[in-house]
């Protein structure tokens, strides 16, 4: 694998760890942690996609704006702003899902008295 593709692969590794925590673990908290890790993995993947060598933040300052030469240079080296907007949305969605998930988990604990999902099964198969 070329060296410049390794970061993407590492993000995939993170995804697999999260998936393993969700599928393989029996504890509700561990499952929630797995969901969080998966969200981190996808956000990491998106930010890696948007990176451009040079890595300037896509924010124009006033001094930069007054110098057309440097402004042009900025436009050629600033990182991709679109994935950043996507990640911001994705972080918010992750947070929203997490709050709802924790609310449900607290209620489930109250009803069943355990965090062990193998004991939380009143529903048949």
């Amino acid at each position: 694998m070329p060296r410049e593709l390794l970061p993407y692969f590492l993000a995939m590794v993170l995804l697999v760890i999260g998936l393993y925590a969700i599928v393989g673990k029996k504890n509700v908290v561990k499952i929630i942690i797995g969901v969080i890790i998966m969200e981190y993995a996808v956000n990491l993947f998106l930010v890696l996609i948007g990176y451009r060598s040079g890595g300037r933040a896509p924010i124009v300052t006033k001094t930069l704006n007054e110098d057309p030469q440097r402004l042009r240079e900025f436009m050629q080296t600033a990182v991709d702003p679109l994935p950043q907007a996507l990640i911001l949305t994705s972080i918010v969605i992750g947070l929203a899902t997490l709050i709802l998930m924790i609310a449900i988990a607290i209620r489930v604990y109250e009803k069943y008295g355990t965090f062990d999902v193998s004991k939380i099964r009143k529903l048949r198969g």
Partner: protein
Amino acid sequence: MRGMSLIVKTVTRLVAEFITIFGIYIVLFGHLTPGGGFTGGVILSCGFILLTLAFGKDFSLHVLSKRAAGTWDSIGALAFLIVALVGYRVGSFFFNLWAEPATFKLASAGTIPISNIAIGVKVGAALFGGFMALAVFRRGARGGYEEDE
């Protein structure tokens, strides 16, 4: 929750104001510097959460009741929707009226600061309300969102 020790309360009293001011700054200057409505809203709600942790839930509910949090949540969301519908003036959805080349001033960039404020209010109130609902909930106690009727 009854609140924490005197040291924590004193430090919180000092810090909470700064957190709030920082949150407002992040919301207002979102179109010029890093940050924006969502980030600022989260910081605002963090300030409230800090107050709750230090002084107990009664104090912070006195500052912003859960019902008021729900109301501001709705108002912020509606304000953002109205910004979106303003675009109908030119026959589109979400049109940035008053857009002009960057002037690096607070009142620039058309509808973007307005949207930022709406989102900031919305997110701050929503997260605070959600946190309080989670914090207040106890086994067997009356809590959660109040039932109607």
